[in-house]
């Protein structure tokens, strides 16, 4: 016991390795993304495990199973948590044996449009969605509810108290988003001034250049 700090360090090394091994096992065993807090509480037995330790283990695992790496599975941040999943590059083989649950191709373009509006504006009412799209959107909203990509998140305060919709963790998982901040910025999709002028001209709202 000449150097207690070193002692503790050496003791802590196998402990970190054990924690990392267990984090790996938990991610493997869980069918859905796990939050750092869930991982920490599952690993806290007689002695609590710090969130920072879990994060350090995840950082190492992320290097071993990187997104888009050479392995058949990868570690990804998804829907506010962490998950191991098959590598998208193995899609053909995986779909030969298993059903890909979230086949995006089954979503109509209308449904994806509605989903984009809800994702960016949430909470959003059917009325708002219809106004933006210029067409009644009840049927795509219903489809998205059935697939649990959106959910009711409340009611408008105003008269009529319309139902307001927001996206679900399932939406984040389906689109590979760590969280909603992960969505590409909406400003990036705005029509440029040049395109606006072009549009105005085409609609005959600007005189021809003199």
């Amino acid at each position, binding site marked *: 016991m000449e150097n207690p700090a070193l002692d503790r360090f050496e003791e802590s090394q196998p402990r970190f390795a054990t924690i990392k091994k267990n984090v790996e096992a938990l991610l493997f*065993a869980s069918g859905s993304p796990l939050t750092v807090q869930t991982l920490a509480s599952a690993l806290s037995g007689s002695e609590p495990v710090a969130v920072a330790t879990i994060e350090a283990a995840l950082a190492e695992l992320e290097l071993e199973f990187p997104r888009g790496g050479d392995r058949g599975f990868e570690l990804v941040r998804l829907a506010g948590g962490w998950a191991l*999943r098959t590598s998208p590059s193995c899609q053909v083989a995986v779909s030969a044996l298993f059903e890909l649950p979230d086949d995006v191709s089954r979503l109509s373009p209308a449904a994806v449009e509605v989903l984009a509006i809800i994702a960016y504006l949430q909470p959003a009412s059917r009325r708002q969605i219809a106004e933006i799209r210029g067409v009644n959107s009840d049927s795509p909203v219903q489809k998205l509810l059935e697939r649990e990509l959106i959910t009711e998140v409340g009611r408008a305060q105003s008269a*009529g108290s319309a139902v307001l919709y927001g996206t679900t963790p399932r939406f984040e998982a389906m689109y590979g988003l760590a969280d909603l901040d992960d969505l590409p910025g909406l400003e990036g999709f705005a029509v440029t001034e040049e395109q606006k002028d072009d549009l105005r001209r085409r609609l005959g709202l600007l005189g021809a250049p003199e």
Partner: protein
Amino acid sequence: MRTLDLELDVYQGPFDLLLSLVLKEEIDLLEVPLLDIILAYLDQMEAEGTHDYWDDMTEFLLLMSLLVEVKSRLLLPGASLELDGELTPEEARDQLLTRLFEYSKFKSASESLRHLAELNCGAIMRPPAGDSRRRLPPLEEIAGSGDVMELRDGLVRLLDSKRQPDAAHLAQIKVDLRRQISIVRGVLARRGHFSFDTVFGGEEPLVQAVSLFALLNLLAKGEIRVSQARAFGDITVRVAQDRKTA
């Protein structure tokens, strides 16, 4: 005769259609034969023959009437074109553009979402190990955690919204084109001809507009003839000659 070959069923709504027409197809509004678009749309609806489709048409009709308005200003510079509605032509035009720009933003965002999904859709997670299922929190943990007033308020809010008629749908007026068509047919069956102003003059502007589209539809089918003595004047509607003799 038709110059415009539109596959209308691929469009997600009127703004989508307009964007494609004006931006992607690079068509100048002056050169877009609006009647062809309308007729193509009507043909399409006929083919679909579904009820919902008519509901969705309301917005399309509104958009088209805005376009007609904008276009007629171009064709008839200086003509006084006061709309019956509360919007001035400039306001209607600006509103149309603002909505078009807004829609276009989400349209691009949805294309990027689709791409994101394609990058991710090939991956699956393992089924949860064994048959283990997470258990519910123990009773002690949740006892008293709910706020019963939240339940009460939830139901009171529903009761309130039942009491006051829901006004949310009123802003979106729905007009049934089929109904207007059958009205036109009915009047013609009784009288053989009628004046548009006499029959529809007292209606809301939107109902008038839809009635006008009903005329276009029947015109396209060859059921009626219409005549208008002067621009913006009354329209006389008659049963088509060959129909009458047949």
